[in-house]
């Protein structure tokens, strides 16, 4: 099913975004033992401002194909932010099963360094040009000087702390435990020792979130090749899948401490005790903690104790973010579930050098997207028995 995959991540890539994308695609096809001529499907995610700093690319998938030289009979774009990569492989898998394509490229990433140098993120491009809107209601909230997505998740973390007593230390503990997993991961950017004190003494960006609880945006692409052809990789299957897309502005939600992962994971009704590892999207420490609750590893409000008590290392009882996650590998193009999907594929193919989960056969992934947490995709990938 997933015949090849790649990760090309740089703190700052000097060349064109198209070139960086090509590097990732070529690498994934090489792993799959396939050529560009075998490709007849494309799924891509476009993140504003991250393609050579262009706000918009007209006919985006055409531009990708024009550069790479790909003729296709199946094309789509997915726009779920941090939940995109998981949705892309699912849709590619369905397309291949239905005979709509034989080999589909799933491409996600971009260059974050350009807009970063302007002090912007993909969620604040409207401060750079009037030609971008974030919601239908920008005039009624952007005047308040938010720093979304950081401030949006800060509001959630603050309320979670108030309702359930979740301390700054417990979020820091999560960051420390993820760092442990990153230490032996060749793909990690950050590997030095990290303590709770280090996290809590890093600058307070948007209270209660500290700098070391926030992902670092990098330049990079992931490519996943979904094909019906044989490949050197293990044969994987999708054992469970669920999506949920919420539509309310965060103030209009019943509460902000729940994410749509409550629904996307429930759709699968899967026994979590049969899962060997969890890869949970980690834009911020609180993002992981919300998902630990919402996918049902622990009930709402109890995640602090869960993080304190459980060994979530790749050697532990409940391995979570086994390669250190985006917090330690960087976040390509400001949002991407590519990091967690790439890590899951390393694990399932026994390729996780230095941080392999013993006997990893089934992995639960969850992606969250949108600055306001509107998208959630839950996916269980497993090695076919």
């Amino acid at each position, binding site marked *: 099913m997933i015949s090849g995959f790649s990760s090309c991540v740089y703190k700052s890539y000097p060349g064109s975004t198209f070139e960086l994308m090509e590097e990732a695609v070529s690498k994934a096809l090489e792993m799959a033992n396939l050529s560009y001529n075998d490709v007849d499907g494309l799924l891509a995610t476009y993140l504003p401002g991250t393609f050579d700093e262009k706000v918009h690319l007209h006919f985006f998938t055409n531009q990708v194909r024009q550069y790479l030289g790909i003729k296709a009979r199946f094309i789509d774009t997915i726009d779920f932010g941090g939940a995109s990569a998981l949705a892309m492989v699912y849709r590619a898998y369905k397309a291949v099963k239905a005979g709509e394509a034989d080999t589909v490229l799933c491409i996600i990433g971009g260059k974050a360094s350009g807009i970063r140098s302007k002090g912007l993120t993909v969620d604040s491009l409207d401060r750079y040009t009037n030609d971008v809107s974030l919601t*239908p*209601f920008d005039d*009624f909230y952007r005047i308040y000087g938010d720093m979304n997505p950081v*401030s949006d998740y800060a509001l959630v973390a*603050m309320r979670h702390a*108030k309702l359930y007593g979740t301390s700054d230390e417990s979020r820091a503990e999560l960051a420390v435990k993820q760092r442990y997993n990153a230490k032996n991961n060749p793909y990690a950017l950050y590997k030095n020792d990290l303590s709770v004190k280090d996290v809590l003494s890093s*600058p307070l960006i*948007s*209270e209660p979130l500290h700098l070391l609880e926030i992902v670092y945006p990098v330049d990079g692409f992931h490519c996943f090749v979904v094909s019906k052809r044989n490949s050197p990789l293990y044969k994987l299957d999708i054992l469970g899948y669920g999506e949920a897309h919420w539509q309310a502005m965060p*103030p209009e939600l019943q509460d902000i401490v729940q994410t749509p992962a409550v629904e996307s994971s429930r759709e699968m009704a899967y026994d979590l005790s049969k899962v060997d590892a969890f890869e949970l999207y980690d834009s911020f420490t609180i993002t992981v903690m919300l998902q630990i609750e919402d996918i049902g590893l622990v009930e709402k409000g109890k995640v602090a104790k869960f993080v304190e008590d459980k060994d979530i290392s790749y050697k532990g009882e409940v391995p979570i973010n086994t390669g250190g996650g985006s917090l330690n590998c960087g976040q390509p193009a400001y949002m991407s579930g590519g990091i967690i999907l790439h890590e899951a594929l390393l694990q399932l193919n026994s390729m996780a050098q230095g941080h392999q989960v013993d006997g990893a056969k089934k992995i639960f992934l969850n992606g969250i997207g949108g600055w306001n947490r509107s998208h959630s995709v839950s996916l269980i990938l497993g090695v076919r028995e």
Partner: protein
Amino acid sequence: MEQEPFRIIDLGCKGMNLKEIVDFYYMSFDKGSLPYICCEACGNKFYYPRSLCPKCHSKQLRLCTSTGKGVIFSYTRINRKEGQLIYAIIEMNEGFRMYSNVEGKNVDIGNEVQVYFSEARGRNYPFFRLLG
């Protein structure tokens, strides 16, 4: 400044268009009152202007004016080079919620706030300060 008492403005606005709603919002801000929308069909109260109810999709909407009093639902102090500001979600006594800024010391979830209006980007907008 003394707030106007709670009142409901029924514009008989079945099928009111978005521009009329937004105009009413800015007119309210200029007069020092906080508008919101009440769905006549399901009772949903919401702040972010739409021409239909996002819950039941009825177009029978009523423009209302809030007492301007509410509590902090959540907040964050944002630290920027230019200084610190408090970004918050306010839960109004009528039940709808909105983003805003809060002024004052001892800001905490559940603390009572009162709306005031101030200019931003050349227009009046609602802001909040702590009561008491």
